[in-house]
């Protein structure tokens, strides 16, 4: 039987377990074949995961003891358990952290199980590649997604502006912004959120220029000139009232979805991810959709990529690695499991599963699936996993400096120089 635990169940369960253990010493032995699973997500993801765990237990006889946390609580918990030599058998892993965990042997290489316990023969090649570190497989992608702009169609209709599509450029957005200004809908809603502090948006913009946020060696992939151009681009949009002002953008603390610009009704579109459309749609009445990030010029593509939205990896100290690998195999290949999971973690990476899942999706899920499947010329190569310090550069440099420019504490010129110098210093320290 698959299990998920909230605190009350845990307390009840613990009490029951202690009682059972006191009655019969054999109860403790039953733990041996149990796989322990830890992932981040909300209740919807937990329900789907537990559904698959029930299927897996029925098929294999192995129990899965599953628990989940929010993103922010997940990483300290996983790191603490890993530090205690007690990592779960199955852990959810993010592209941002996979290198760090792999190089420290906190997750196990899976190559020895591929072809036996772990069947990846029909797995999308680019998604398989995304789970490799130093040539070895450390994570199995649970779905592909892509950055996408969240668009409030109702707001565009009110403003009488044609909504953006896959050919929309940054210049087009400026023109749309003028139209929004003259219409003045919903107390001065702007066409777009301020994207200057958005790491994915900067990344996408750089990739269209043939550059990257980070190189494969973990160095900064661009120079002061691009950073200055980036901050200037947004400073002008802010000054012209195309994007939201500094005070408004600062309401979004990169925390709850409720505080984002589209949901607060401050902007008609904002940078987001393809798999988040469903979650955002539950928060507003207006009809939402997704489209690509703007192009830097007509016909220029290559900014997007199909990112492994998350992986399952096997804990480095797991005593049950083979069983865990078999679980992963079931999770990504089994059509019935696919039906339970849908596209909640991203688009399935096995085409047979995709075929089973596609007809049963609702309209919003369909939009997400079609978007990721039909990126066309917008699609570029998967960038190397970011260096360990990338998170720190995002949180304590890019977002802070973008706010400094927005509030007028720094010029765009100064901000570009400062960002590149400081980011290089953080990367240097991270490598030491």
């Amino acid at each position: 039987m698959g299990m998920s635990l909230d605190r009350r169940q845990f307390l009840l369960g613990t009490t029951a377990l202690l009682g059972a253990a006191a009655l019969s010493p054999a109860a403790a032995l039953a733990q041996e074949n149990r796989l322990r699973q830890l992932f981040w997500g909300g209740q919807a993801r937990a329900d789907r995961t537990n559904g698959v765990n029930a299927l897996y237990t029925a098929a294999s006889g192995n129990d899965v003891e599953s628990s989940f946390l929010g993103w922010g609580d997940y990483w300290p918990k996983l790191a603490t358990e890993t530090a205690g030599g007690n990592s779960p058998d199955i852990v959810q892993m993010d592209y941002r952290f996979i290198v760090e965990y792999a190089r420290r042997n906190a997750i196990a290489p899976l190559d020895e199980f591929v072809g036996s316990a772990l069947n990846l023969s029909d797995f999308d090649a680019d998604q398989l590649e995304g789970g490799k570190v130093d040539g070895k497989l450390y994570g199995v992608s649970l779905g592909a997604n892509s950055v996408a702009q969240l668009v409030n169609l109702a707001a565009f209709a009110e403003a009488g502006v044609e909504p953006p599509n896959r050919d929309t450029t940054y210049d087009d957005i400026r023109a749309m912004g003028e139209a929004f200004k003259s219409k003045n809908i919903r107390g001065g809603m702007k066409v777009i959120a301020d994207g200057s502090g958005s790491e994915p948006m900067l990344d996408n913009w750089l990739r269209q220029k043939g550059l990257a946020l980070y190189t494969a060696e973990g160095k900064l992939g661009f120079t002061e000139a691009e950073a200055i151009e980036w901050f200037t681009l947004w400073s002008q949009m802010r000054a012209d009232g195309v994007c939201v002002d500094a005070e408004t953008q600062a309401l979004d603390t990169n925390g709850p979805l409720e505080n984002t610009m589209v949901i607060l009704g401050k902007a008609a579109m904002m940078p987001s991810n393809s798999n988040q459309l469903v979650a955002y749609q539950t928060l507003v009445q207006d009809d939402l959709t997704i489209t690509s990030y703007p192009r830097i010029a007509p016909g220029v593509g290559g900014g997007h990529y199909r990112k492994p939205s998350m992986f399952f990896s096997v804990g480095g100290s797991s005593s049950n690695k083979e069983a865990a690998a078999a679980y992963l195999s079931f999770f990504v290949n089994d059509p019935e499991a696919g039906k339970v999971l849908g596209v909640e973690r991203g688009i399935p990476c096995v085409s047979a599963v995709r075929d089973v899942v596609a007809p049963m999706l609702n309209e919003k899920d369909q939009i997400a699936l079609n978007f990721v499947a039909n990126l066309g010329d917008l699609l570029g190569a998967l960038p190397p996993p970011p260096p360990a310090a990338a998170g720190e550069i995002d949180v304590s440099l890019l977002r802070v400096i973008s706010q400094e420019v927005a509030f007028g504490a720094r010029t765009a010129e100064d901000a570009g120089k400062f960002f590149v110098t400081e980011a290089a210093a953080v990367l240097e320290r991270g490598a030491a």
Partner: protein
Amino acid sequence: MTAQSISASARIKGGAVGSSIWSRAWENHAPGYLFLLPWFIGFFGLTIGPIITSLYLSFTHFDLLTAPRWAGLDNYIRMFTNDRNFVASMRVTMFFVIFSVPLKLAFALGVALLLNRGMRGLPLYRALFYLPSLLGASVAIAILWRQIFAGDGLVNQFLALFGIVGPSWISNPNYSLWTLIVLSIWQFGSPMIIFLAGLRSIPQDMYEAASLEGASKWRVFWKITLPMLTPVVFFNAIIQTIEGFKSFTPAFIISGGTGSPINSTLFYTLYLYNEAFSFFRMGYASALAWVLLAIVAVFTAFSFFTSKFWVHYDD
């Protein structure tokens, strides 16, 4: 009892010296210590142990995933020579403490003076005014605070009645820290209760003498109430200063843990938390924690030193 007389009485009763003192002490106190054992285990295992470990960790680089590496004074050197965020967070925290503590104490004293005038229903008012202190540090209030001080929040709706267009207080770096100071002042309950108790303990005959002499209310406050209350003021100031340095939850919730906008609410504890649990520099975070301890200790010692010049004990 002197040591001699103890051993003398032990000799009379026991016969064999030395061990009998210990065995008798053991017999007398063992049950007590056994009952205290759970507390001792908690104290040494969960309090003293981790504190000593964190002191050790502060001299290492430790990312949780790999074993700590000895770093000597690296963490401390970096903190004081090459860390803008340390300076920024220290500035934010100092500003917060310097403004929130006196304002909160003044407010709490003001309310205590009002409540001390022998009004009817005092227990009810006392409970009502204490309520924010119970709620104030909670997540729910921090979220509510966002709504109140946002651009289209309650405060600006009120200001709009007078034709004033207010800024988005919570997301403007010029005002965001002040919203947290106001939140802190609003939690004036516990110093207020202590002030109230202090006011009650001032001897009435002093006030009677003052009124016979025809002293004004203002003069009575400055010459009798406040001097007699200084031990309570001193106690409250120390406690609230320590609370101020430790303040974490409101800033964490309101800024989503980022200290946004532009690090204007990057409290020292928030920075420490991010270093530990966002960037996994446990060694550096431990060093930050020990420096915070030192700073609080210095502040407290300084307060005690100055106290002899302004605190009047009635003896």
